């Protein structure tokens, strides 16, 4: 490094100071928030996948049973399946109890 470059480094370099704890803390708070959000999103997706699979299973059962019990019975079973599906959809929207 030439003298001129050394002078530039001295003039432009970062201040000789200890680590800024407040800055690190604020970054880590944001990182923690980000981590929690990701975990919560992953949990929501898992729950959604489980409930969607359950809904499909209920509907498939209704259709199969409908084939056995005839048209009137099938209408009743479909209503029952829709009611069950709506419960699965509404339950996650209800406010959580702490």
């Amino acid at each position, binding site marked *: 490094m030439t003298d001129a470059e050394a002078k530039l480094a001295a003039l432009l370099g970062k201040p000789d100071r200890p680590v800024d704890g407040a800055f690190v803390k*604020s970054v880590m708070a944001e990182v923690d928030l980000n981590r929690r959000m990701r975990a919560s999103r992953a949990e929501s997706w898992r729950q959604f996948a489980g409930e969607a699979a359950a809904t499909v299973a209920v509907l498939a059962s209704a259709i199969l049973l409908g084939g056995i019990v005839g048209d009137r019975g099938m209408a009743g079973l479909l209503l029952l399946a829709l009611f069950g599906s709506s419960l699965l959809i509404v339950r996650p929207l209800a406010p959580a109890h702490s």
Partner: protein
Amino acid sequence: MDGDEGLARLAAGGDTAAFEQLVRRHEGGVRNFLRRVARDSADDLAQETFTRAWRLAGSFRGSGSYRAWLYKIAWRVFLSSRKPPVAEETCNPPVESHSPDPAIGIDIERAMSALSERERAAAILCFAEGCSHAEAATALGLPLGTLKSLVARARARLISSLEQQDD
């Protein structure tokens, strides 16, 4: 103590303590870099840089240095945040100088503001942060030859300014 690359691997696996170590190591350099290129809101940009580095931790391949990868994020955060260049040079407060003589600090600021954004960024990375040309080229997303030209031009202009001030 682990090197940056080891800590980066741990951070990619979700280890926040390892990432905190990386923030402690690099906050001074990243903030200094952003203060020199962005000036106002540099700390907000630095915070965004580290948050993005956490989110993208899994994409660090370890083929280059972690420092170059981090400066690359900082440079992109700066580019995506900047305002139209018209207002850029008008009302920026002087950056804190580390020179014992405040007048020299102001002069280096004047000399720096005469450089283009890329020249300024290249000068900070190579002269102040001790990055190699290859690291600076990675950080700024430039071919090595272009980066070397930028550094040479910035160096000549800054030295010329300093010599004028010495006379």
